C-alpha cells in the first residue's frame, strides 16, 4: 500500500503542477509544489530503509501458479538504494531547474520527470519476473513517447525505434527466462531461479543497457532538456542495472564467461575512452552509461553480483551531479569533487564495495582493462567537472542558494547510500585497486593540465581531439552496429524475396490448386506415418 501511495503521490503531484501552472499562472508556486513533493518522497524513501517487509503484493493478477500470478514490488537491500537514488535524482533535477526557471520555464518537463521517476521506482522495486516485465515495458513506452514527442530528426527516428527494439528484446529475454525455468521444472522468482535461466536475465540486462551486444543507438542524442533528459537517460538504465544485483554468483557457465567478460570489458573501455574525449558531459552521457554499465555487467559475470548495485548507483548519482552542473563557479567545484571522491573507491567511500567486483583475483588481462577503464572514467569526470560552463552572474540570490543545494543533495545521497545503503556497504574494499586507479587518474590529469593539453581554453585541446576523433569515429561506427543493421537489412530483403515468391504462388492464379497439392502431400505424409 505504501508503495502505491509513494508512486501515486508522485504522479498526482505531477498533475498538480500542471493544474497550478495553468490555473494560477504561478511558475514559482508550481515549482515549489514540485520540490516539496519530491522532498517528501525522498524523506519517505529514506525512512523506509529501516522498515522491513514493505511490499506491494497483487495476488492472482492472472491465472497460473502462485509464483507467476503475483506481482510483487518491494523494498529490499537491492531495490532500496536504487529507489533512493532515483528520488534523489528527481530532487536534484527540480532544485537545479531553478537556474532555468526564468529563461525556459517548462512545468511539462517537471511533470514528465516525476512521471518517469515514478515508473522508474516501480521498475527497481519489481521483485517478480512478471513485475519486471510490466514495469520495464512501462518505462520503455514512456521513454519512447518522450523521445518521439521531441523534434527528432528523420535519422534519429530510426535510432529511437532501434533503441526501443533493443529494450523490448531485453524484456522478451526475461520472458524467455521465465519459459526456460518452466521447461527446467523450476518456476522462477527473482529470489530463486535456476542458474541456467540466469543467463537470460543477464542478456536482458545487457540488452537494456546496450552492453550485450554493445550498441549505441544514440551517439547524437535527440534534443532534450537537461533536466528531463538526465532523468530519462538515467532512470531507464537503472531498471536494467537493478537486475544485475539479483543474479546468482554463477550466472554464466565457465565456458561462456570469458566471452561475456570480454564484451563487457570492451564496452567499459570503449565507453570510458569516448567519455574522456567527449565535447562535454552531455555529449558524453551515453558513453558514461555504457562504461559503467559494462563494469556492472562484468561484476555480475565474475561472480560478484553484490558489487554491481553500487556501480549503478554511481551511474545515477555521480553522473547526475555532473549532468546537472550547468552553472559553474570555482567554489561550487566542491560538490563535483565530493562526488568524485565518492567515485574514487577509497576505503569507506561509496564505491569501495564496487571495487570488489572490478578486480577479482587471480589477476588477469581483463582486470587491467577494467582498471584502465575506471581510471579513464575518473579522468573524464575530472575533465568535464573543471571545464567551463554558464556563469552564476545574472542569477537571483535564491537560485544561487537552491541550485548548489540540488547538486549537493545528489552528492550527499551518494554518500548516504555508501554509508548505510545495505549491510556491508561501508567497507574498506579493494583499497590497492583504488590507489592504482587514483594514481593513473592523477597522472592523466596532470598530463592534460600541465602539458597544456586541456584547459579552459578549448583551442589548446585541439590536438587531443584531432588525435582521438578519427579513432573514435571508427570505433563509434563499429559499436553503433550500423554494419550489423546493414547486414540484417540485406538478409531481410533476401528472405522477403522468398516470402514474396511464395505469397504470389499461393495467392496468385492457381493458388487453390497449390494449396490442395500441399494438402495432398501432407495427407500422404500423415498416412505413411500413421498406418501400420
Amino acid at each position, binding site marked *: 500500500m505504501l508503495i502505491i501511495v509513494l508512486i501515486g503521490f508522485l504522479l498526482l503531484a505531477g498533475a498538480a503542477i500542471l493544474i497550478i501552472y495553468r490555473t494560477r499562472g504561478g511558475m514559482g508556486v508550481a515549482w515549489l509544489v514540485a520540490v516539496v513533493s519530491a522532498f517528501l518522497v525522498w524523506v519517505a524513501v529514506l525512512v523506509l530503509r529501516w522498515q522491513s517487509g514493505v511490499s506491494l503484493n497483487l495476488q492472482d493478477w492472472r491465472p497460473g501458479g502462485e509464483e507467476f500470478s503475483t506481482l510483487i514490488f518491494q523494498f529490499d537491500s537491492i531495490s532500496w538504494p536504487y529507489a533512493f537514488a532515483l528520488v534523489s535524482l528527481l530532487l536534484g533535477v527540480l532544485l537545479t531547474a531553478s537556474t532555468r526557471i526564468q529563461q525556459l520555464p517548462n512545468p511539462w518537463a517537471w511533470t514528465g520527470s516525476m512521471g518517469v521517476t515514478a515508473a522508474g521506482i516501480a521498475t527497481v522495486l519489481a521483485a517478480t519476473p512478471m513485475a519486471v516485465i510490466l514495469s520495464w515495458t512501462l518505462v520503455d513506452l514512456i521513454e519512447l513517447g518522450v523521445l518521439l514527442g521531441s523534434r527528432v530528426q528523420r535519422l534519429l527516428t530510426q535510432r529511437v525505434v532501434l533503441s526501443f527494439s533493443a529494450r523490448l528484446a531485453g524484456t522478451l529475454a526475461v520472458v524467455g527466462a521465465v519459459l526456460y525455468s518452466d521447461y527446467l521444472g523450476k518456476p522462477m522468482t527473482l529470489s530463486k531461479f535456476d542458474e541456467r535461466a540466469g543467463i537470460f536475465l543477464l542478456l536482458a540486462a545487457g540488452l537494456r543497457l546496450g552492453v550485450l551486444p554493445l550498441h549505441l543507438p544514440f551517439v547524437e542524442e535527440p534534443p532534450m532538456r537537461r533536466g528531463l533528459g538526465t532523468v530519462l537517460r538515467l532512470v531507464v538504465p537503472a531498471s536494467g542495472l537493478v537486475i544485475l544485483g539479483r543474479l546468482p554468483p554463477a550466472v554464466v557457465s565457465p565456458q561462456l564467461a570469458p566471452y561475456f567478460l570480454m564484451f563487457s570489458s570492451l564496452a567499459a573501455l570503449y565507453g570510458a575512452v569516448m567519455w574522456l574525449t567527449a565535447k562535454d558531459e552531455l555529449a558524453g552521457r551515453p558513453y558514461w552509461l555504457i562504461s559503467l554499465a559494462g563494469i556492472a555487467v562484468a561484476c555480475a559475470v565474475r561472480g560478484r553480483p553484490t558489487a554491481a548495485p553500487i556501480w549503478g548507483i554511481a551511474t545515477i548519482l555521480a553522473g547526475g551531479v555532473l549532468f546537472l552542473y550547468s552553472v559553474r563557479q570555482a567554489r561550487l567545484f566542491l560538490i563535483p569533487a565530493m562526488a568524485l571522491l565518492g567515485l574514487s573507491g577509497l576505503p569507506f567511500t561509496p564505491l569501495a564495495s564496487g571495487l570488489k567486483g572490478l578486480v577479482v583475483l587471480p589477476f588477469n588481462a581483463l582486470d587491467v582493462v577494467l582498471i584502465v577503464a575506471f581510471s579513464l572514467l575518473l579522468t573524464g569526470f575530472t575533465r568535464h567537472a573543471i571545464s567551463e560552463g554558464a556563469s552564476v552572474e545574472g542569477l537571483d540570490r535564491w537560485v544561487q542558494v537552491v541550485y548548489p543545494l540540488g547538486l549537493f543533495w545528489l552528492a550527499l545521497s551518494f554518500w548516504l547510500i555508501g554509508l548505510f545503503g545495505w549491510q556491508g556497504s561501508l567497507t574498506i574494499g579493494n583499497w590497492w585497486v583504488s590507489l592504482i586507479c587514483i594514481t593513473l587518474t592523477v597522472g592523466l590529469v596532470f598530463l592534460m593540465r600541465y602539458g597544456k593539453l586541456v584547459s579552459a581554453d578549448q583551442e589548446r585541446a585541439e590536438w587531443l581531439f584531432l588525435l582521438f576523433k578519427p579513432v573514435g569515429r571508427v570505433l563509434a561506427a563499429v559499436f553503433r552496429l550500423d554494419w550489423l543493421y546493414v547486414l540484417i537489412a540485406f538478409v531481410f530483403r533476401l528472405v522477403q524475396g522468398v516470402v514474396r515468391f511464395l505469397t504470389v504462388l499461393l495467392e496468385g492464379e*492457381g493458388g*487453390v*490448386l497449390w494449396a490442395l497439392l500441399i494438402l495432398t502431400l501432407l495427407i500422404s505424409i500423415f498416412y505413411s506415418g500413421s498406418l501400420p
Partner: protein
Amino acid sequence: MILQQQLAIIPVLILLATTTLISVSRLWRYTVLALVAQYLAVAWLVAMVWPIGLAVVKLVVGWMSSAILGAAQTDRREDGENGRIFVKGFLFRLFAIGVVWLVVFSVAPSVSGWFAAPLQVLWGSSLLIGAGILQMGISGEPFRVFVGLLTALAGFEVLYAAVESSVLVAGLLAMANLGLALAGSYLMVVNTLEEL
C-alpha cells in the same frame, strides 16, 4: 439389373463431356449448357441410390442455379478473343482435365473402400469434384469460379446421396446451391450496381 448397370455408364460419359466442355470452353453459353447437362447426369446418378422424386430435386435446383448464373451474364466478349472456342490455354486446360480423368479413374476403386456406393457413382462424383476444383483453381472470374464450386459441390452431393438419404439434408443442400448461384450472380454484377 445388368442393363441398369450398363446404362449407368451413360451419366458418367455425359459428365466426361460436360466437365471437359466447362474446363476448355471460354464461351459462357456453352458453359451454362454444359452445366445443365451436367445436372441431368447428376440427377441420374443420384437416382441410382435415391428415390426418383428426390433425385429430380437435384435436377431442378441445378437447372435453376444454371439459369441464375446465365441470367447474370452480360454480352461482353470473353478473353477478348471474339468468342472463339480455341483460345490460348485451350490445350493446357484439355491436358489438365485429362489428368483429372486419369486420377479419378485410378483413385475411384480405392475410394470404394470408404463409401459403399456403385462404382459409377464414385466415378461420377470424383469427376465432378476434380473438375470443379480444377475450374476453381485456374480461373479468377466469378462466373467460372462459381461454376466450378457448383460442380464440386454437385460431386459431393452425389457421394453424400450414396451414404445418406435425408430429405431435410437434400432440401438444405438445394438451398445452399441456390444461395451459391445467387451469390455468384451478385458478384458477377456487383460492380455495376448502385447501393442496395
